[in-house]
């Protein structure tokens, strides 16, 4: 096991290394002088030279990369040109919204998937299963920003069920904050639920076929309680793994929904960095998000094998 963890860890470090190389060198192929981009074309040669020196742009690329990655490891991602502040601080400010949004929507879709995936598995190959299957396709095909605009209009502005602009603040209570992001989270969950339902369905089918399910029948256990007590318990692992990977994916995929609901999250910050051509900010966010995603998949992997092992030993 220890060998596996070390191997997997080294692999994670390697992936992070490649990601950082892609992020850094991709942006270096940009035509034009970054100093000119920052100061404008009418800047004096002296001030340009000064800025180049302070940004280390005269140094060789490999050294620039090493400096950047070394700083990043100390949580220093440089300065944002557009906001004029520390990139790390900016990310820190936007983080709570995005994390809560991702957790809430994965949570909602996971619960729904557990219910409908189990139903589909139990009634496999009947019209119920086919209907659920078709619906998962429909849900996965709805554009979230479109659904968001409709939800914002009908459920928030016209009915007042949800706040129109959900602003997240530490001073407000937990419930107020949840309410602020509940509608966007629900809409993201619609897009997520399809893939999870399929996963729950297929692992439930496997669980229902297993020997212990036959023995529960022999013992005279009622089928619904047998499904909930035994089948679900063993079928839940793969979907849990998938859910945590979906969380990671959502973490980088909130740009659209945050734009619709004007939430000040990481995704919105990312869009602004591209719009404003703020390279340091973009580099920082991309590196941060991918680092989180890679770490989550590492931890998920380790936990999954660990739990699988215990299940095997215990069972």
């Amino acid at each position, binding site marked *: 096991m220890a060998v596996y963890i070390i191997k997997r860890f080294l692999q994670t470090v*390697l*992936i*992070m290394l*490649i*990601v950082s*190389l*892609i*992020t850094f060198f*991709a*942006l270096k*192929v*940009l035509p034009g002088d970054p100093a000119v981009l920052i100061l404008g074309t009418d800047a004096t040669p002296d001030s340009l030279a000064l800025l180049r020196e302070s940004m280390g742009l005269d140094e060789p690329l490999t050294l620039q990369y090493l400096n950047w990655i070394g700083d990043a490891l100390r949580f220093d991602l440089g300065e944002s040109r557009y906001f004029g502040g520390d990139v790390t601080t900016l990310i820190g400010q936007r983080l709570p919204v995005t994390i809560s949004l991702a957790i809430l929507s994965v949570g909602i879709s996971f619960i729904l998937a557990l219910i409908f995936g189990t139903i589909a598995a139990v009634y496999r190959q009947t019209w119920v299963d*086919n209907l659920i*299957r*078709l619906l998962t*396709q*429909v849900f*996965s*095909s*709805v*554009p979230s*920003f*479109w*659904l968001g*605009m*409709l939800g*914002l*209009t*009908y459920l928030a*502005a016209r009915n007042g069920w949800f706040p129109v602009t959900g602003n997240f603040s530490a001073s407000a209570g937990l419930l107020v904050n949840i309410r602020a992001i509940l509608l966007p989270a629900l809409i993201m969950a619609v897009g997520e639920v399809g893939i999870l339902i*399929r996963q729950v*369905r*297929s692992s439930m*089918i*496997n669980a229902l076929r297993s020997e212990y399910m036959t023995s529960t029948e022999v013992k005279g256990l009622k089928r619904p309680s047998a499904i909930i007590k035994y089948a679900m318990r063993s079928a839940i692992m793969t979907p849990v793994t998938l859910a945590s990977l979906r969380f*990671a*994916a*959502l*973490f*980088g*995929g909130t*740009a*659209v929904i945050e*734009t*619709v609901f004007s939430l000040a999250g990481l995704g919105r910050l*990312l*869009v602004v*960095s*591209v*719009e404003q*051509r703020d*390279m340091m900010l*973009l580099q920082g966010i*991309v590196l941060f*998000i*991918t680092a989180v*995603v*890679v770490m989550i998949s590492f931890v998920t992997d380790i936990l999954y094998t660990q739990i699988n092992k215990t299940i095997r030993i215990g069972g």
Partner: protein
Amino acid sequence: MEQTIVNAQAKKKGFNFSLFLGVFFILIVIGLFIWSFITSVDPTLFDMTNRFDGWSMAHPLGTDQFGRDVLTRVAYSMRSVFTVGVGSVLLGLIIGMIIGSIAGIAPTFIQRLLMSVVDGLIAFPGILLAMLIVFILGDGIENTVVAIGIMMVPSYAKLSYSTVIENKQKLYVKAAKSYGLSNFQIVVSHIYPDLLPKIVTQFTSSVAGAIMIEASLSFLGLGVQPPNASLGLMLKEAQKDVLLRPEIVIPAGVSLMIVVLGFNLIGDALNDKLLNRRGES
């Protein structure tokens, strides 16, 4: 032999409603695409006296916030749908297949290197990679194709790589090798036939994904730019007025859903038919 397999499947499946629905949707989309070349209505013509018109004979889907004909704009958007959807996936498919095939037959060092880069590309979640590429190349329809195309590379590289590796162990490949065929010949004439159905299946679902990404990027203002029409762009432009006139987002949103759903349903049916797997095992 092939005939019996087809017969057995036909008996088992019967009428495939999902496939029918998918084909139906895509036919509508193709119809709209063709319409954009037939119609004489200018999709960019402003008519400020006829803003937010309802559905009528003159404007079957009404007019938008600038008085432009919505049906014509939706039809023109289908050009972006096909250019970006099919173009980007083809690009990703070709690059991915080359990388995966080379990695499959190359020495261990090159194999590791190539597949590590592919793993690195996978680590970028959602549209992050596309946004990074748009930052570098700038927006516009061609750059959107490239950005989404690169996003599509990893899945095709992995698929080609695993198929090559899997087949390399098989007897017929060893036999072909003993006849003196080069690695390149073996991959192209003996392994690609096995890869093809997998690629076709993946292609259809990838197109659905690519269209959704294009719409998202255009919605964020980072994809297709005016005067080109795009469903995502239509929704972006409608955003200001949606609270008062929510009906103006219906045509573009429903069309986008029909396109994506159509490709998804066909992809799903192909998955059953060509690969004969249904997540059962």
